[in-house]
């Protein structure tokens, strides 16, 4: 138990590997998602909403949209992570109970898109991951789903890859941009 400004802090609880494995096995049948926009153009967000409509009906895979990160197992992250949103994004991901999963959606979520090196954005999830590590926020699994905007079928496929139900279709190699 750690003291937190005089108040006894009951969290974080130790989440050992065995519990994590068990939790992953349970997640395969029921996964609750939270939609987190980190400053996207709304193209991917419309596709995320598309996934949740009766046409694609992700409830048939046990996927359900929730309104609070406390209830979520998976964050659908869209946008290149603008500087203004960093603190809110970190708090939202930290609010999730473990195991925490992230699906980085769209070109912006994957690597910043056309805003990969601007002054106003972080350049997608990979750079956010470094900040999360510095803040001591552990993310258990990440899958990148590229596309501009990302296709609804790709989002569903990405969720299946994340849960280990399917294999990824391609492998990625991260490159660093060279400033001229």
């Amino acid at each position: 138990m750690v003291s937190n400004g005089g108040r006894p802090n009951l969290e974080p609880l130790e989440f050992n590997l065995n519990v994590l494995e068990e939790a992953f096995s349970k997640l395969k049948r029921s996964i609750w998602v939270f939609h987190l926009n980190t400053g996207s153009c709304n193209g991917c967000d419309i596709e995320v909403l598309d996934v949740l409509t009766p046409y694609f009906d992700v409830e048939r895979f046990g996927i359900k949209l929730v309104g609070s990160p406390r209830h979520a197992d998976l964050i659908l992250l869209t946008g290149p992570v603008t500087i203004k949103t960093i603190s809110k994004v970190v708090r939202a991901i930290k609010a999730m109970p473990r195991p925490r999963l992230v699906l980085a959606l769209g070109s912006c979520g994957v690597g910043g898109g056309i805003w990969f090196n601007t002054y106003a954005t972080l350049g997608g999830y990979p750079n956010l991951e470094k900040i999360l590590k510095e803040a001591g926020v552990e993310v258990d699994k990440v899958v990148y789903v590229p596309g501009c905007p990302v296709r609804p079928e790709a989002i569903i496929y990405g969720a299946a890859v994340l849960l280990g139900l399917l294999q990824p279709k391609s492998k990625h190699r991260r490159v660093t941009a060279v400033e001229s």
Partner: protein
Amino acid sequence: MEALAIALLSLLLMSILSFLPPLLDGIERKVRAKIQSRIGPPTLFQTWYDLLKLGVKELKIPISGESAAFLIILSLLVTLMSLYAVVYVVLTLTTNVDLIVLAMFLVLVAASHSLGLVASATTSNPFALIGSYRSILLTVLNELGLVVGSFFSILSGLRLVTNYSISTLIIYLSSLAILLIATYVSSGRLPFDIHEAEPELASGILIEFSGKLLGFYIYTHLLMRYVLSLLVAIALATPFITSLPTLLVVFPMSLLLSMCFYLAYGVVAALLGRTRVDIGVRTLFTYYLLVLIVLVIFTWIGI
């Protein structure tokens, strides 16, 4: 020996009935999906899978919400007690309706609702508190309907058996209408699903709960939904109390009737649209006022 047999039978019945509500919720989700031209959850046990998943998730205690865990567990225990009370009423239905047990049942239902609401008000999240206050207002108004509806419907139903009159029949039907509205609202379905609707506005009473805590809260809520469906089944069976066959027929029939009500409420919820959350209380008050006027007039005529 007889006491032991009754205890074992009660334990068996309670185990079966405790397992039932999440399964009924799974069926309701499947029916709702069918109405909306979807496939819906992969299995009827989906709600059970959701609850089991919540059981292995990390428990994050909200700031100043340490007492929430205790209150939610207490609420679950009180709900289980109310289930036992209502099962006792069903088991003795062929002889008479025990009004003392019925009164105790209503106190337990009110206690379960209050504990859940107090648990939601323990967090320091101001948005969760806004949702809690809305929910408290709705629950306080609805408890009135629940008490009036259940007592009047069962008492007038018993009176119909011995002394049939048109005014008693109207009292019975209007109080049954109140009971139907009250149980529907208590079940937290559209448009009275404040605890579920408000997380979408980031101000619901559930917003800070996670893991096992959320799982217990959801399970308690589903159990309460079923308990109230069983109460409606009892109120419907009361006027036919003398012509009821043996317990072996009455008990399964009551369970079947309660399941039908549970699913019928789900179908009604799927057909209704979501309104503004603050309109819920006003709409409910108007409904109650109209039916209560009818009830008071005919009770006065009956006297």
